[in-house]
Protein backbone atom coordinates (compact mmCIF):
# COMPACT_ATOMS: atom_id res chain seq x y z
CA UNK A 1 0.00 0.00 0.00
CA UNK A 2 1.31 3.38 -0.95
CA UNK A 3 2.05 5.36 2.13
CA UNK A 4 -0.24 8.29 2.53
CA UNK A 5 1.39 11.67 2.52
CA UNK A 6 1.63 12.53 6.18
CA UNK A 7 2.68 16.14 5.76
CA UNK A 8 0.42 19.09 6.38
CA UNK A 9 0.88 22.77 5.78
CA UNK A 10 2.20 24.76 8.68
CA UNK A 11 2.36 28.51 8.94
CA UNK A 12 3.61 30.61 11.81
CA UNK A 13 2.77 34.25 11.35
CA UNK A 14 3.81 37.16 13.55
CA UNK A 15 2.89 40.82 13.10
CA UNK A 16 6.33 41.55 11.64
CA UNK A 17 6.83 38.67 9.28
CA UNK A 18 5.86 35.22 8.15
CA UNK A 19 7.98 33.36 10.64
CA UNK A 20 7.69 29.87 9.22
CA UNK A 21 5.96 28.37 6.25
CA UNK A 22 6.38 24.81 5.17
CA UNK A 23 5.34 21.19 5.36
CA UNK A 24 5.49 19.37 8.64
CA UNK A 25 4.46 15.95 9.81
CA UNK A 26 3.97 16.96 13.41
CA UNK A 27 3.96 20.04 15.52
CA UNK A 28 4.04 20.20 19.32
CA UNK A 29 3.30 23.23 21.43
CA UNK A 30 1.86 24.50 24.72
CA UNK A 31 -1.73 25.62 24.81
CA UNK A 32 -3.36 27.22 27.83
CA UNK A 33 -4.87 23.83 28.62
CA UNK A 34 -1.65 21.89 28.36
CA UNK A 35 0.70 20.39 25.84
CA UNK A 36 -0.60 19.47 22.45
CA UNK A 37 0.82 17.48 19.55
CA UNK A 38 -0.79 17.80 16.16
CA UNK A 39 -0.61 15.35 13.28
CA UNK A 40 -2.33 15.61 9.95
CA UNK A 41 -6.14 15.27 10.10
CA UNK A 42 -6.41 16.59 13.61
CA UNK A 43 -9.96 17.67 14.40
CA UNK A 44 -10.62 21.35 13.64
CA UNK A 45 -9.58 23.29 16.69
CA UNK A 46 -8.86 26.82 17.69
CA UNK A 47 -6.89 27.20 20.86
CA UNK A 48 -4.95 29.83 22.72
CA UNK A 49 -1.18 29.52 23.03
CA UNK A 50 0.77 29.59 26.24
CA UNK A 51 4.38 30.75 26.18
CA UNK A 52 6.50 27.78 25.30
CA UNK A 53 8.56 25.92 22.77
CA UNK A 54 7.14 24.86 19.46
CA UNK A 55 8.69 21.76 17.98
CA UNK A 56 8.22 21.30 14.28
CA UNK A 57 8.95 17.89 12.79
CA UNK A 58 9.78 18.22 9.12
CA UNK A 59 11.01 15.64 6.64
CA UNK A 60 14.56 16.81 7.33
CA UNK A 61 14.42 16.73 11.12
CA UNK A 62 13.17 18.81 13.99
CA UNK A 63 13.12 22.52 14.49
CA UNK A 64 12.43 24.41 17.65
CA UNK A 65 11.26 27.94 18.23
CA UNK A 66 10.17 29.99 21.20
CA UNK A 67 6.67 31.37 20.98
CA UNK A 68 4.87 33.76 23.32
CA UNK A 69 1.17 34.57 23.26
CA UNK A 70 -1.13 34.08 20.34
CA UNK A 71 -3.43 31.37 19.09
CA UNK A 72 -3.53 28.44 16.72
CA UNK A 73 -6.06 27.43 14.17
CA UNK A 74 -5.97 23.78 13.25
CA UNK A 75 -7.84 22.68 10.17
CA UNK A 76 -7.21 19.10 8.99
CA UNK A 77 -4.52 19.82 6.41
CA UNK A 78 -3.51 23.26 7.50
CA UNK A 79 -2.26 24.62 10.80
CA UNK A 80 -1.84 28.33 11.30
CA UNK A 81 -0.15 29.90 14.29
CA UNK A 82 -0.85 33.55 14.90
CA UNK A 83 1.82 34.47 17.40
CA UNK A 84 2.62 37.85 18.82
CA UNK A 85 6.26 36.97 19.26
CA UNK A 86 8.20 34.08 17.78
CA UNK A 87 11.95 33.52 17.80
CA UNK A 88 14.41 30.95 16.54
CA UNK A 89 16.98 29.88 19.13
CA UNK A 90 19.78 31.79 17.38
CA UNK A 91 17.81 35.02 17.67
CA UNK A 92 17.66 34.85 21.41
CA UNK A 93 20.03 36.80 23.60
CA UNK A 94 20.54 34.60 26.67
CA UNK A 95 22.15 37.33 28.73
CA UNK A 96 19.12 39.51 28.20
CA UNK A 97 16.75 36.70 29.04
CA UNK A 98 18.70 35.95 32.24
CA UNK A 99 18.53 39.60 33.21
CA UNK A 100 14.80 39.68 32.53
CA UNK A 101 14.37 36.52 34.60
CA UNK A 102 16.24 38.02 37.54
CA UNK A 103 14.24 41.22 37.28
CA UNK A 104 10.91 39.43 37.18
CA UNK A 105 11.84 37.18 40.11
CA UNK A 106 12.94 40.20 42.09
CA UNK A 107 9.63 41.91 41.47
CA UNK A 108 7.63 38.85 42.44
CA UNK A 109 9.66 38.35 45.62
CA UNK A 110 9.32 41.92 46.84
CA UNK A 111 5.65 41.94 46.13
CA UNK A 112 5.31 45.70 46.34
CA UNK A 113 1.72 46.82 46.16
CA UNK A 114 2.09 48.75 42.96
CA UNK A 115 3.46 45.99 40.77
CA UNK A 116 1.51 44.11 38.22
CA UNK A 117 1.91 40.52 39.39
CA UNK A 118 0.39 39.05 36.27
CA UNK A 119 2.77 40.99 34.09
CA UNK A 120 5.80 40.01 36.09
CA UNK A 121 4.74 36.40 35.91
CA UNK A 122 4.40 36.55 32.15
CA UNK A 123 7.80 38.21 31.90
CA UNK A 124 9.28 35.44 34.01
CA UNK A 125 7.65 32.78 31.87
CA UNK A 126 8.97 34.35 28.71
CA UNK A 127 12.46 34.52 30.10
CA UNK A 128 12.28 30.88 31.16
CA UNK A 129 11.12 29.79 27.71
CA UNK A 130 13.94 31.70 26.07
CA UNK A 131 16.53 30.22 28.38
CA UNK A 132 14.98 26.77 28.08
CA UNK A 133 15.21 26.61 24.32
CA UNK A 134 18.88 27.55 24.39
CA UNK A 135 19.81 24.56 26.48
Amino acid at each position, binding site marked *: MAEENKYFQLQI*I*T*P*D*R*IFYEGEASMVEFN*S*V*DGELGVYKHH*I*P*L*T*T*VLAPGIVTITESGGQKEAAIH*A*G*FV*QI*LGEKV*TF*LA*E*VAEWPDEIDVARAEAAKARAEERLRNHAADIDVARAEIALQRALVRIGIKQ
Partner: protein
Amino acid sequence: MASMRDIKRRKSSIQSTQQITKAMKLVSTVKLQKARNRAEQSNPYFNHMYQTVTSMLARSGSLNHPYLKGGDSGKKAIITIASNRGLAGGYNSNVVKLVTESGMAKEDIQVYMIGRKAEELLVRKGYEIKADYSDVIEGPTYEDATTICKDVLEAFSKGEIGEIYLAYTHFKNTVSHEPKLMKLLPIEFDEAELNEVDNNVLMNYEPNEEEALDLIIPKYLTSLFYGALVEAVASENGARMQAMDSATSNADEMISDLTLKYNRARQGSITQELTEIIAGAEAIS
Protein backbone atom coordinates in the same frame (compact mmCIF):
# COMPACT_ATOMS: atom_id res chain seq x y z
CA MET B 1 9.71 97.66 -9.81
CA ALA B 2 11.69 95.98 -7.07
CA SER B 3 15.38 96.75 -7.07
CA MET B 4 17.86 94.27 -8.39
CA ARG B 5 19.28 93.69 -4.97
CA ASP B 6 15.88 92.85 -3.49
CA ILE B 7 15.14 90.37 -6.23
CA LYS B 8 18.50 88.73 -5.82
CA ARG B 9 18.07 88.36 -2.09
CA ARG B 10 14.59 86.91 -2.51
CA LYS B 11 15.84 84.45 -5.08
CA SER B 12 18.66 83.13 -2.94
CA SER B 13 16.32 82.72 0.04
CA ILE B 14 13.93 80.69 -2.07
CA GLN B 15 16.81 78.63 -3.35
CA SER B 16 17.90 77.68 0.13
CA THR B 17 14.33 76.82 1.08
CA GLN B 18 14.16 74.64 -1.97
CA GLN B 19 17.26 72.80 -0.88
CA ILE B 20 15.59 72.04 2.42
CA THR B 21 12.36 70.85 0.84
CA LYS B 22 14.31 68.71 -1.57
CA ALA B 23 16.24 67.08 1.26
CA MET B 24 13.04 66.54 3.23
CA LYS B 25 11.45 64.93 0.24
CA LEU B 26 14.34 62.50 -0.11
CA VAL B 27 14.20 61.66 3.57
CA SER B 28 10.49 60.93 3.48
CA THR B 29 10.87 58.86 0.34
CA VAL B 30 13.29 56.58 2.15
CA LYS B 31 11.13 56.47 5.25
CA LEU B 32 8.08 55.76 3.15
CA GLN B 33 9.75 52.76 1.59
CA LYS B 34 10.61 51.35 4.99
CA ALA B 35 7.17 52.02 6.38
CA ARG B 36 5.52 50.49 3.37
CA ASN B 37 7.51 47.31 3.73
CA ARG B 38 6.47 47.05 7.34
CA ALA B 39 2.86 47.63 6.46
CA GLU B 40 3.04 44.90 3.86
CA GLN B 41 4.69 42.48 6.25
CA SER B 42 2.00 42.94 8.84
CA ASN B 43 -0.68 42.20 6.28
CA PRO B 44 -0.72 38.37 6.36
CA TYR B 45 -1.04 38.39 10.13
CA PHE B 46 -3.93 40.76 10.00
CA ASN B 47 -5.68 38.91 7.18
CA HIS B 48 -5.53 35.62 9.04
CA MET B 49 -6.72 37.28 12.19
CA TYR B 50 -9.63 38.78 10.35
CA GLN B 51 -10.58 35.47 8.79
CA THR B 52 -10.41 33.66 12.09
CA VAL B 53 -12.49 36.20 13.92
CA THR B 54 -15.13 36.48 11.20
CA SER B 55 -15.49 32.74 10.98
CA MET B 56 -15.72 32.52 14.76
CA LEU B 57 -18.41 35.14 14.88
CA ALA B 58 -20.26 33.75 11.91
CA ARG B 59 -20.76 30.55 13.81
CA SER B 60 -21.47 32.11 17.14
CA GLY B 61 -23.38 35.21 16.14
CA SER B 62 -25.76 34.89 19.02
CA LEU B 63 -23.09 35.05 21.70
CA ASN B 64 -23.95 37.57 24.33
CA HIS B 65 -20.49 38.98 24.80
CA PRO B 66 -19.83 42.60 25.82
CA TYR B 67 -17.36 42.96 22.97
CA LEU B 68 -20.21 42.34 20.58
CA LYS B 69 -22.91 44.28 22.38
CA GLY B 70 -21.14 47.47 23.39
CA GLY B 71 -21.09 49.05 26.83
CA ASP B 72 -23.83 51.01 28.57
CA SER B 73 -21.82 54.19 28.79
CA GLY B 74 -22.63 56.89 26.26
CA LYS B 75 -18.97 57.90 26.13
CA LYS B 76 -17.02 57.10 23.03
CA ALA B 77 -13.29 56.67 22.80
CA ILE B 78 -11.54 57.65 19.61
CA ILE B 79 -8.00 56.47 19.14
CA THR B 80 -6.57 59.09 16.84
CA ILE B 81 -3.39 58.42 14.92
CA ALA B 82 -1.68 61.39 13.33
CA SER B 83 1.82 62.79 13.36
CA ASN B 84 4.23 64.54 15.68
CA ARG B 85 5.50 66.76 12.92
CA GLY B 86 3.87 69.10 10.49
CA LEU B 87 4.86 69.93 6.91
CA ALA B 88 2.87 67.04 5.56
CA GLY B 89 0.17 68.87 3.65
CA GLY B 90 -3.30 68.18 4.96
CA TYR B 91 -2.31 64.97 6.72
CA ASN B 92 -2.90 66.06 10.32
CA SER B 93 -5.88 68.28 9.71
CA ASN B 94 -7.62 65.56 7.71
CA VAL B 95 -7.41 63.21 10.68
CA VAL B 96 -8.63 65.93 13.01
CA LYS B 97 -11.53 66.56 10.68
CA LEU B 98 -12.55 62.91 11.03
CA VAL B 99 -12.96 63.47 14.75
CA THR B 100 -14.66 66.85 14.59
CA GLU B 101 -17.02 65.84 11.80
CA SER B 102 -17.82 62.40 13.14
CA GLY B 103 -21.29 63.55 14.15
CA MET B 104 -20.66 62.67 17.80
CA ALA B 105 -21.18 65.21 20.55
CA LYS B 106 -17.96 66.79 21.73
CA GLU B 107 -18.77 66.04 25.36
CA ASP B 108 -19.11 62.33 24.66
CA ILE B 109 -15.75 61.96 23.02
CA GLN B 110 -12.59 60.91 24.80
CA VAL B 111 -9.55 61.04 22.61
CA TYR B 112 -6.64 58.64 22.94
CA MET B 113 -4.06 60.62 21.10
CA ILE B 114 -1.07 59.62 19.05
CA GLY B 115 0.60 62.54 17.30
CA ARG B 116 1.36 65.90 18.90
CA LYS B 117 0.41 68.09 15.94
CA ALA B 118 -3.13 66.84 15.76
CA GLU B 119 -3.35 66.91 19.55
CA GLU B 120 -2.68 70.66 19.55
CA LEU B 121 -5.51 71.14 17.09
CA LEU B 122 -7.94 69.05 19.07
CA VAL B 123 -7.07 70.69 22.38
CA ARG B 124 -7.68 74.09 20.84
CA LYS B 125 -11.08 72.91 19.71
CA GLY B 126 -11.92 71.80 23.23
CA TYR B 127 -11.78 68.02 23.01
CA GLU B 128 -10.95 65.91 26.01
CA ILE B 129 -7.63 64.15 25.60
CA LYS B 130 -7.75 61.06 27.78
CA ALA B 131 -4.25 59.83 27.13
CA ASP B 132 -1.30 60.68 24.98
CA TYR B 133 1.02 58.12 23.39
CA SER B 134 2.66 60.40 20.86
CA ASP B 135 6.13 58.86 21.12
CA VAL B 136 4.86 55.60 19.72
CA ILE B 137 4.49 56.91 16.19
CA GLU B 138 8.25 57.37 15.80
CA GLY B 139 8.67 53.62 15.49
CA PRO B 140 5.57 51.62 16.28
CA THR B 141 6.12 48.11 17.59
CA TYR B 142 3.57 45.43 18.24
CA GLU B 143 4.24 45.80 21.93
CA ASP B 144 3.26 49.46 21.85
CA ALA B 145 0.01 48.50 20.18
CA THR B 146 -0.60 45.90 22.88
CA THR B 147 -0.14 48.37 25.74
CA ILE B 148 -2.38 51.01 24.23
CA CYS B 149 -5.06 48.50 23.35
CA LYS B 150 -4.94 47.14 26.88
CA ASP B 151 -5.48 50.60 28.34
CA VAL B 152 -8.45 51.29 26.11
CA LEU B 153 -10.00 47.87 26.67
CA GLU B 154 -9.63 48.31 30.41
CA ALA B 155 -11.61 51.54 30.24
CA PHE B 156 -14.16 49.65 28.16
CA SER B 157 -14.55 46.77 30.57
CA LYS B 158 -14.79 49.18 33.51
CA GLY B 159 -17.73 50.76 31.75
CA GLU B 160 -16.10 54.15 31.31
CA ILE B 161 -16.63 54.03 27.59
CA GLY B 162 -19.26 52.31 25.51
CA GLU B 163 -17.78 52.39 22.06
CA ILE B 164 -14.29 52.51 20.61
CA TYR B 165 -13.36 54.09 17.32
CA LEU B 166 -10.12 54.37 15.45
CA ALA B 167 -9.25 57.41 13.32
CA TYR B 168 -6.24 56.98 11.06
CA THR B 169 -5.07 57.39 7.51
CA HIS B 170 -5.39 54.36 5.31
CA PHE B 171 -2.46 53.85 2.97
CA LYS B 172 -3.74 52.91 -0.45
CA ASN B 173 -0.62 53.59 -2.45
CA THR B 174 2.18 56.14 -2.58
CA VAL B 175 0.02 58.96 -3.85
CA SER B 176 -3.34 58.21 -2.33
CA HIS B 177 -4.10 58.04 1.36
CA GLU B 178 -7.55 58.06 2.77
CA PRO B 179 -8.48 59.24 6.26
CA LYS B 180 -10.69 56.62 7.84
CA LEU B 181 -12.87 56.38 10.92
CA MET B 182 -13.36 52.78 11.94
CA LYS B 183 -15.50 51.27 14.65
CA LEU B 184 -13.51 48.83 16.77
CA LEU B 185 -15.99 47.93 19.48
CA PRO B 186 -18.65 46.71 19.56
CA ILE B 187 -17.56 44.61 16.62
CA GLU B 188 -19.68 44.95 13.54
CA PHE B 189 -19.33 42.79 10.50
CA ASP B 190 -20.94 42.88 7.14
CA GLU B 191 -23.73 40.33 7.04
CA ALA B 192 -22.72 39.50 3.50
CA GLU B 193 -19.16 38.80 4.51
CA LEU B 194 -20.28 36.63 7.37
CA ASN B 195 -22.42 34.56 5.06
CA GLU B 196 -19.53 33.95 2.72
CA VAL B 197 -17.57 32.20 5.42
CA ASP B 198 -17.40 28.49 4.94
CA ASN B 199 -19.64 26.96 7.55
CA ASN B 200 -18.95 23.35 6.75
CA VAL B 201 -16.10 22.86 9.15
CA LEU B 202 -17.19 22.31 12.67
CA MET B 203 -14.62 24.16 14.71
CA ASN B 204 -13.82 23.24 18.28
CA TYR B 205 -12.56 25.72 20.78
CA GLU B 206 -10.27 25.20 23.65
CA PRO B 207 -10.89 26.53 26.30
CA ASN B 208 -14.58 26.99 25.53
CA GLU B 209 -15.82 29.34 22.87
CA GLU B 210 -16.51 32.31 25.08
CA GLU B 211 -13.16 32.21 26.80
CA ALA B 212 -11.42 31.83 23.48
CA LEU B 213 -13.34 34.83 22.21
CA ASP B 214 -12.33 36.73 25.29
CA LEU B 215 -8.68 36.09 24.56
CA ILE B 216 -8.75 36.35 20.81
CA ILE B 217 -10.75 39.53 20.35
CA PRO B 218 -8.23 41.76 22.16
CA LYS B 219 -5.58 40.24 19.94
CA TYR B 220 -7.72 40.95 16.92
CA LEU B 221 -8.14 44.57 17.98
CA THR B 222 -4.45 44.89 18.68
CA SER B 223 -3.63 43.59 15.23
CA LEU B 224 -6.10 46.02 13.67
CA PHE B 225 -4.58 48.79 15.67
CA TYR B 226 -1.03 47.79 14.85
CA GLY B 227 -1.94 47.67 11.17
CA ALA B 228 -3.42 51.15 11.45
CA LEU B 229 -0.25 52.41 13.15
CA VAL B 230 2.11 51.16 10.46
CA GLU B 231 -0.21 52.36 7.72
CA ALA B 232 -0.41 55.76 9.35
CA VAL B 233 3.37 56.02 9.39
CA ALA B 234 3.46 55.12 5.70
CA SER B 235 0.73 57.63 4.92
CA GLU B 236 2.46 60.36 6.89
CA ASN B 237 5.65 59.95 4.94
CA GLY B 238 3.74 59.67 1.69
CA ALA B 239 1.88 62.89 2.45
CA ARG B 240 5.08 64.64 3.42
CA MET B 241 6.80 63.44 0.31
CA GLN B 242 4.02 64.84 -1.84
CA ALA B 243 3.90 68.12 0.06
CA MET B 244 7.63 68.56 -0.23
CA ASP B 245 7.57 67.61 -3.89
CA SER B 246 5.04 70.29 -4.69
CA ALA B 247 6.93 72.77 -2.51
CA THR B 248 10.08 72.04 -4.48
CA SER B 249 8.36 72.51 -7.82
CA ASN B 250 6.68 75.69 -6.55
CA ALA B 251 10.08 76.99 -5.59
CA ASP B 252 11.33 76.15 -9.07
CA GLU B 253 8.52 78.17 -10.57
CA MET B 254 9.18 81.13 -8.32
CA ILE B 255 12.88 81.03 -9.05
CA SER B 256 12.37 81.08 -12.80
CA ASP B 257 9.88 83.91 -12.38
CA LEU B 258 12.34 85.88 -10.26
CA THR B 259 15.19 85.19 -12.67
CA LEU B 260 13.11 86.71 -15.44
CA LYS B 261 12.32 89.75 -13.29
CA TYR B 262 15.93 90.08 -12.29
CA ASN B 263 17.14 90.03 -15.89
CA ARG B 264 14.51 92.54 -16.85
CA ALA B 265 15.53 94.85 -14.02
CA ARG B 266 19.20 94.49 -14.97
CA GLN B 267 18.47 95.26 -18.62
CA GLY B 268 16.29 98.18 -17.52
CA SER B 269 19.04 99.70 -15.46
CA ILE B 270 21.56 99.30 -18.29
CA THR B 271 19.19 100.96 -20.74
CA GLN B 272 18.58 103.74 -18.30
CA GLU B 273 22.28 104.34 -17.77
CA LEU B 274 22.86 104.42 -21.52
CA THR B 275 20.07 106.93 -22.09
CA GLU B 276 21.51 109.08 -19.34
CA ILE B 277 25.02 109.00 -20.82
CA ILE B 278 23.76 109.78 -24.32
CA ALA B 279 21.57 112.58 -23.06
CA GLY B 280 24.52 113.98 -21.08
CA ALA B 281 26.85 113.79 -24.10
CA GLU B 282 24.30 115.53 -26.25
CA ALA B 283 23.85 118.29 -23.69
CA ILE B 284 27.61 118.99 -23.68
CA SER B 285 28.10 119.10 -27.44
